[in-house]
C-alpha cells in the first residue's frame, strides 16, 4: 500500500430509524488504490452505512472525512461533489435511452446561449470512458439491449464520468454469470491501478478473498473489526460475521413425527410447476431448497390458490380440498407467508394490530357487524408478548418496525388462525440474526404443537440447520429428497442443478 493516509474515513456513525438502531458507532477507512470489502449478514447495516455515504440517508451522529477534511453529505448531489458514487443492486439506468445518454444523464452540460448539448462530444467521451475499462460497444445501443453485466459496466462508466474517487458496489455479482463476474473483476483491478478506492459489499466469501485487500465487518449495526484479507481465514471471517457458531444459530429440536396432514398429488401450474407430489407430516419442518426460479414459490402459491393449478389434487387430513383462492386455502387450514414482506405481506400504512388481525377479523365480529376492539387488542398484546415483538405499542404503524419485527407480526397473523399447514417462503430474508433465531424457535414450537411446516429457503445453512426433511426442486420438478441426517450442501446443490443419480 503506497498511501498511508486514508482517502475516506467514517467515524462513529450512528443512525436510528423509528424502532430500530440501524447503525451504532460504526467506523470505516478506505484508501485509494485498494478494494475494501464491507462484510456482514443481511441487516448488519452495510447498505445503511453506504446509503449515508452516498447521501440517501443523513446520519444522526458521527463524521465523514474525505482527504483529511470533514464533509457534510446531505444529498446525492453532495456525495457526487465529493467524488462518491454508488452502484446499487438494482441498477438505475433508463432502459429506453442509449448508452451515452445514460452515462451523461443529468450531467450533459450545454452551450450557454443555445442551451444545446454537445452530442458529438458526449459520444466521444462515452467511448473513451468505456474503452478505459475495456468495454468496446457502440454507444448508441439502447440500454435495454444489454445484459446485466454490461449494464453494470455502464454504471461504472457513469461513475467515472463524474470524476468519482470512491466507488461503492452493492453486491454487484448477484445477478452476474461467472464470465461477467470475471470481467467485472478485471475492471475493478484496473480502477485500483488508477488509484480509485472501491468499497465492495458482498457476502460471497470467494469473491472477497479474490478481489479485496481489506475487510471491514459489521454485525447487527455494530462495527466488529477490520482485517487484511491476507491475514485471515474464511472460518475466522465467518465467526466474525455471525458472532456465534452454527449450532447455536439454528436451534433444532426433534418432535414426534405424526400423520400426513397435507398431501399434494401431481400438482402443475403452467410450465413453472410440473407434476409435484409430496406429503407434509404433522410435527415436521419440511424444507424446499433449489435455485432461484426453480418454481418453489410458484408451487406454494398454487397450493395457496393465488395461482390457478392446471392439474393435480390437494388433500388435507386425507380428504380432497378444492382451493380457488387464498380465502379458500385459509379456510381449509393452509396458510402462506410470502417471500416479499412489503409487497405481499404488510399493509404499510396500517398499525401493528390491524396487520396482525387482518386474516382473522371475523373472530372479533359481533352481531352488529362491529369489530370488538377491546377483544382484538387483548389478543394482539398477547402475541406481541409471546413473539417478543419490539414495538412501542400495538397502534404503532407497522412501517416503523424493523424487518424482523415486521416478519414476526405476519407470523403472528397466521399463527392466530391456528392453521394445520403453514407454508413460509424465505422467512428470514433481510432479518437480523437475533430475530432469526426467535423465528426458528417459534417454528419449533409450532412443530411441537403438531403443525406441518413447509419452509422454502434459499439460505442453505438455514435449510440444513432447521428442517427435518428436505425436498429439492429443479425447473419446476422435485429433483430429490433428503433426510436431515443425509443432507449436505453438496447433495442439495447436486439436486438443485438437476444432476440425477
Amino acid at each position, binding site marked *: 500500500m503506497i498511501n498511508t493516509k486514508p482517502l475516506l474515513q467514517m467515524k462513529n456513525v450512528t443512525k436510528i430509524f423509528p424502532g430500530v438502531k440501524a447503525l451504532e458507532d460504526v467506523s470505516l477507512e478506505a484508501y485509494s488504490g485498494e478494494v475494501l470489502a464491507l462484510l456482514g449478514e443481511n441487516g448488519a447495516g452495510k447498505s445503511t452505512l453506504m446509503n449515508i455515504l452516498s447521501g440517501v440517508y443523513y446520519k444522526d451522529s458521527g463524521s465523514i472525512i474525505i482527504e483529511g477534511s470533514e464533509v457534510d453529505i446531505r444529498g446525492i448531489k453532495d456525495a457526487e461533489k465529493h467524488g462518491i458514487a454508488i452502484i446499487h443492486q438494482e441498477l438505475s439506468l433508463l432502459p429506453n435511452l442509449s448508452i451515452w445518454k445514460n452515462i451523461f444523464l443529468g450531467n450533459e452540460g450545454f452551450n450557454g446561449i443555445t442551451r444545446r448539448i454537445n452530442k458529438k462530444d458526449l459520444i466521444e467521451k462515452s467511448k473513451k470512458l468505456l474503452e478505459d475499462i475495456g468495454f468496446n460497444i457502440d454507444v448508441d445501443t439502447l440500454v435495454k439491449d444489454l445484459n446485466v453485466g454490461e449494464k453494470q459496466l455502464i454504471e461504472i462508466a457513469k461513475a467515472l464520468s463524474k470524476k468519482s474517487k470512491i466507488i461503492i458496489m452493492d453486491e454487484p455479482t448477484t445477478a452476474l454469470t461467472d464470465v461477467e463476474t470475471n470481467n467485472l473483476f478485471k475492471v475493478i483491478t484496473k480502477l485500483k491501478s488508477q488509484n480509485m478506492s472501491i468499497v465492495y459489499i458482498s457476502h460471497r466469501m470467494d469473491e472477497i478473498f479474490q478481489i479485496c485487500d481489506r475487510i471491514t465487518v459489521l454485525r447487527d449495526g455494530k462495527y466488529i473489526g477490520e482485517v487484511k484479507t491476507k491475514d485471515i481465514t474464511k472460518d475466522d471471517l465467518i465467526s466474525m460475521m455471525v458472532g456465534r457458531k452454527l449450532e447455536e444459530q439454528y436451534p433444532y429440536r426433534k418432535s414426534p413425527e405424526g400423520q400426513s396432514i397435507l398431501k399434494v398429488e401431481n400438482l402443475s401450474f403452467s410450465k413453472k410447476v410440473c407434476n409435484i407430489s409430496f406429503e407434509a407430516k404433522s410435527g415436521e419442518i419440511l424444507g424446499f431448497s433449489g435455485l432461484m426460479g426453480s418454481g418453489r414459490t410458484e408451487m406454494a402459491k398454487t397450493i395457496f390458490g393465488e395461482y390457478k393449478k392446471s392439474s393435480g389434487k390437494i388433500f388435507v387430513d386425507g380428504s380432497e380440498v378444492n382451493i380457488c383462492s387464498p380465502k379458500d*386455502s385459509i379456510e381449509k387450514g393452509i396458510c402462506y407467508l410470502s417471500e416479499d414482506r412489503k409487497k*405481499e405481506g404488510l399493509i404499510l*400504512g396500517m398499525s401493528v394490530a390491524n396487520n396482525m388481525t387482518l*386474516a382473522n*377479523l371475523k373472530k372479533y365480529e359481533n352481531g352488529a357487524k*362491529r369489530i370488538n376492539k377491546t377483544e382484538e387488542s387483548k389478543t394482539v398484546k398477547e402475541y406481541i408478548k409471546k413473539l417478543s415483538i419490539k414495538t412501542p405499542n400495538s397502534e404503532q404503524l407497522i412501517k416503523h418496525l424493523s424487518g424482523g419485527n415486521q416478519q414476526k407480526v405476519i407470523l403472528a397473523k397466521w399463527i392466530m388462525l391456528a392453521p394445520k399447514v403453514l407454508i413460509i417462503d424465505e422467512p428470514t430474508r433481510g432479518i437480523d440474526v437475533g430475530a432469526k433465531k426467535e423465528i426458528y424457535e417459534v417454528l419449533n414450537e409450532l412443530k411441537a404443537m403438531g403443525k406441518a411446516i413447509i419452509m422454502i429457503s434459499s439460505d442453505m445453512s438455514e435449510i440444513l440447520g432447521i428442517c427435518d426433511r428436505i425436498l429439492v426442486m429443479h425447473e419446476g420438478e422435485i429433483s430429490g429428497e433428503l433426510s436431515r441426517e443425509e443432507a449436505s450442501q453438496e447433495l442439495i446443490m447436486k439436486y438443485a442443478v438437476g444432476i440425477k443419480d
Partner: protein
Amino acid sequence: MNNKLKNSLLKYKSLIGFLILCMVISVITPRFLTIPNIKNVFTQVSVNAVIAIGMSFVILTGGIDLSVGSILAVSGAVAASIIKSTGNIYLAIIVALAIGSMVGLINGVLISKGKIQAFIVTLATMTIFRGVTYVYTNGTPISGLGESFSVIGNKTVLGLPIPVVFTIIVFGLAYYILSQTRYGRYLYALGGNEDSARLSGINTNKIKTLVYVICGAAAALSGIIVTSRIGSASPNAGVGFELDAISAVVLGGTSLSGGEGSVVGTIIGALIIGVLNNGLNLVNVSPFYQAIIKGLVILLAVIVEKKNK
C-alpha cells in the same frame, strides 16, 4: 413548536382551515353568520357531501368514480318520471337507488373482474349514462312533480333541512362501516396494499365492486335531493359534480392513492367548498374569479398535505 401540539394541529388541519375560512368570511360580510344563510349553505352542501361520502369509499380503495354526475342525472330523471306517472314517491326513491346501485355494479365488475382502470371505466359510463339520460328525457327537463315530492328538498325536520338530515344519516352509516366493521378494515387494507390484502384471504374483488355500488347509490340519493329541490329533473343535472366530490375528498385529507383518510375529513372538505362558494357569492366575486380561487384552495390543501408527509 412542541411536537404534541404540532401533531394535533396537523391532525385537524382541515378543520382548522375550515374555521379560519368561516372567520374570514364572517369578518368581511355580516350576512354570512345568519340563520337563513347557514341553513342555505348546509342544504347546498348536502348534495355534494352525499356524493363525496360515496366517493370516499372509492378513493380509499385507490379508485376513482367519474360517473357520479351522470348517475345523479339518470336516477333523478327516472324518479321524476315515476312520480309523474304513478305519484308513488317511495317507489320512485327505491327505483332511483336501485339504478344508482346497478350502474355502480357495472363499474365495479368491470374494474375488479375486468381489471380495467377505474378512470377509464367510469369515464366511459359517465358518457354512456349522460347519453341515456338525454335519450330517456328526450333532452327536456321533467317537471311538475307535485308538492309532496318537493318536501324532501325543501322542508325541515326539527329545524333541520331534510337534505341535511339525509347527509347526517349517510355520514353516520359511512363512519360506522369504515371505522367499526370488518368491511371497513378490509377496504383500508385493499387501498393500502391489494396483494397483501388478497393474500390475507380477503375477497378483494368483492370489496372493490361494493365500493362502486355504494358510490352509485349515494349519487342516486343525491339525485333525488336535487330533483326534489329544483322540482324538476334536468338531463344536464350533475354535470361536473364528480369534480366537486373528488375535491371534497381531497380537501379532507384522503390520499388519492388509497388506504388513508376518513369520511370526517370528507364532510369538512365538502363544507369548505360549500362555504367558499357561499362566501364568494355573498361578497359578489365574479364566477370567473370564483373558479380560480377554488382551484387555488385545492392546490394549497394538497401542498400542505404533501409537506407533512
